[in-house]
């Protein structure tokens, strides 16, 4: 059979097909990894309490889905991350803009925010659990400050990095403070803000898992730590895979494209 001559139809592979082959080439190595893992477990005959096989992990996963515990833990973790992050952005961005507008204020406050963004996240767990007790409040606090300081610091950098000529130009075109904020300051700082959110969330996600291991009785971190008490490595590995997939989804499907879009759109870096 000869291929039909190309007529009106586009000879290019369709976008959907391209995305599909992209997904397959991405997943293939991971599938191979799973096969290698299973083969290694069978060949070495390692004790399942030390290193579980694929089947055991899938069974543990299926069970945790059936009895609803997976959704409970995932729901708790995601809920905390979202709440803490949204709060941090709501407070951090306006504060960062306010601080960045005046060169004097930003010169003075930059070192402070740098210090606290260095500390952001895990280092706050001990004091947060003392102040708020074990549980929801402490975890939200850890996530909040992981995101807050990094976002506020990056917003501050972004706003104070907007060329003064741009602000003068807008002012001479008659922009009031509100227009200035909407049309110049926020768009100008947006790439920095998004980068800040991405970095902050990276810290927050780790802080979350650590805090859940220490300070709560629900959530993915707790699920892992509880499974450890019973030497249920298959449940631990399943939890790790869930954590990996969740973060890949958050980072690759939301944060990275967002960052790329804002940075590229304003031509701040090439390509």
């Amino acid at each position, binding site marked *: 059979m000869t291929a039909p001559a190309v007529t009106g139809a586009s000879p290019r592979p369709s976008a959907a097909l391209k995305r599909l082959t992209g997904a397959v*080439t*991405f*997943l*293939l*190595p*991971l599938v*191979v*990894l799973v096969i290698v893992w299973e083969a290694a477990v069978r060949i070495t005959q390692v004790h399942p*309490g*030390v290193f579980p096989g694929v089947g055991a992990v899938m069974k543990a996963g299926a069970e945790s889905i059936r009895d609803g515990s997976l959704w409970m833990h995932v729901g708790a973790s995601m809920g905390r991350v979202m709440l803490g992050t949204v709060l941090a952005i709501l407070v951090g961005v306006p504060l960062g803009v306010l601080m960045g507008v005046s060169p*004097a204020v930003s*010169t*003075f*406050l*930059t*070192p*402070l925010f740098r*210090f606290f963004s*260095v*500390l952001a*996240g*895990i*280092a*706050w*767990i*001990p*004091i947060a*659990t*003392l*102040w708020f007790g074990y549980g929801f409040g402490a975890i939200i606090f850890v996530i909040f400050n992981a995101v807050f300081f990094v976002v506020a610091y990056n917003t501050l950098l972004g706003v104070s990095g907007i060329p003064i000529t741009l602000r003068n130009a807008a002012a001479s075109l008659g922009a009031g403070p509100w227009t200035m904020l909407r049309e110049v300051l926020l768009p100008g700082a947006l790439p920095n803000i998004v980068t800040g959110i991405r970095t902050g969330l*990276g*810290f927050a*996600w*780790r*802080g979350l*898992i*650590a805090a859940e*291991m*220490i300070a709560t009785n629900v959530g*993915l*971190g707790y699920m*892992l*730590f509880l*499974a*450890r008490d019973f*030497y249920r*490595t298959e449940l*631990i*590995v399943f*939890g*790790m*895979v869930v*954590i*990996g*997939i969740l*973060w*890949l989804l958050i*980072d*690759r499907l939301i944060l990275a494209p967002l960052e790329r879009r804002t940075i590229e759109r304003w031509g701040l870096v090439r390509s």
Partner: protein
Amino acid sequence: MIAAENPFARVWGAYLRLIARFPSVGQIVPFLPLIALWALVVELGVFPRAFFPGPVDVVQSFITLTWKGILPAYLEDSVVRLLVGAAVGIAVGIPLGLLVGLSSKAHKALWPILLFFQAIGDIAWLPLLIIWFGFGLQTMTFVIVYTVLFPVVLNTVLGVRSIPLELHRAGRSLGAPPWRIVTEIVVPGALPNIITGLRNGLGYGWRALIAAEMIVGTSGIGFLMFDSRRAGSVVEILLGMIVLGLLWYAVDALILAPLERATGQRWGLVAR
């Protein structure tokens, strides 16, 4: 300008000139009002003192713990762990990154796996590591190496792939054999990215270390903080946090910043 008559503006101008000459002053002075505010809140007794100790208490505990030798010993433990982790992470991460960056076959095969393992994150490994190695040094070392490794690998790959084709071509038409292309062009070209990876890796690794010390540790700054938490001693927790912050400044000033100044900034590859 009218503002020049204003005494505040004059003081501010003097301050700006001062920090222009001594940048480190500008990094310290802003903390003074913050510490004063902190001391004031404590003196006013807004919160119970045991719950919210003041700067003086922290300094006192610093002196006591240093005098007893606990703080220096813990600090040394943490720093050594961090350095070992960084060294292994670099020694493995850079060659791996070069391989994945240079060979499109290796890239196809390994890139998704690298992304996935990075996404799992260091801390999620702790329960499994505790089962494997118990509570102790091996577990912590693994976590640190793991955390430093991925940012270094991923950034090395990015760096290798960002080297313009022209530079490869220039090297080859000047007679460089493949391995010289790697040492003379690929490694230096990727170096700014590698250092960025190291910066991110240490930033994450150092957080992971604290978490590991809290959860499995028997020494180190993270352990100090968590142990104090058990004892309900807020002042030592605050001390630990301040030490951690300063430790990062030291790593930045002594290792990362000089590296960046000597490489990418000098070559005009990254903005100063």
